[in-house]
């Protein structure tokens, strides 16, 4: 089985990730997921593709810590996080987060918390490639 936390260039399968999460416990009554995708339009410009740069070793360790923190904070049964780096075209997947808990509230809240924390804590940077040129993205809430 693939590790629960990964940074990879290739696309991922949501079905495989959810099956892996479900396989970790039969006490799981709720699974919440977040899928982040590449938009083909941003700040009034067409975006043909996005490239991601990362401080790989630190990003992986921060993602693992984020998963452990979420499991402890929301009493999750399991959680998974996959983030792509390299080049991602408009409409393609960027990040997948899944939280599994006994009940839905913990799963939903943990999923929201993990994507918000990821944006604050994990050293990954996004550059948008447009017909007018390329620019690093300034984060917004």
């Amino acid at each position, binding site marked *: 089985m693939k590790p629960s936390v990964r940074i990879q260039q290739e696309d991922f399968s949501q079905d495989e990730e959810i099956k892996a999460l479900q396989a970790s416990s039969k006490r799981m009554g709720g699974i919440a997921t977040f899928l982040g995708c590449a938009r083909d339009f941003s700040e009034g410009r067409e975006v043909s593709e996005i490239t991601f740069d990362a401080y790989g070793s*630190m990003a992986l360790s921060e993602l693992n810590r984020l998963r452990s923190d979420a499991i402890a904070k929301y009493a999750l049964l399991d959680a998974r996080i996959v983030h792509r780096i390299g080049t991602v075209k408009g409409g393609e997947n960027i990040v997948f987060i899944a939280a599994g808990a006994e009940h839905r509230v913990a799963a939903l809240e943990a999923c929201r918390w993990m994507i918000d924390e990821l944006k604050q804590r*994990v*050293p990954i*940077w996004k550059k948008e490639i447009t017909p007018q040129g390329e620019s*690093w993205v*300034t*984060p917004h809430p």
Partner: protein
Amino acid sequence: MIRVLFFGPIAAATGEREVPVAHVPGMTLGNLKESLAARYPDAMHLATMMAVNGEHVRDLSLLLADNSEVAFMAKFSGG
């Protein structure tokens, strides 16, 4: 020697991803940041986050050990 790492927008602005800097006893993170700001004035203003040996650090008075890995990082934009 200190290994200084740049990524994303700061790597683009400096044209470097890794820069060796001689270690000086008593050197702090702030000292290192100041010397890099003089060398890369168009890039270091982006450095709002720092990490030493892969851990987030905010304290500029932190003493740097020889062979440390220090990253000066722009605000993250993953996800």
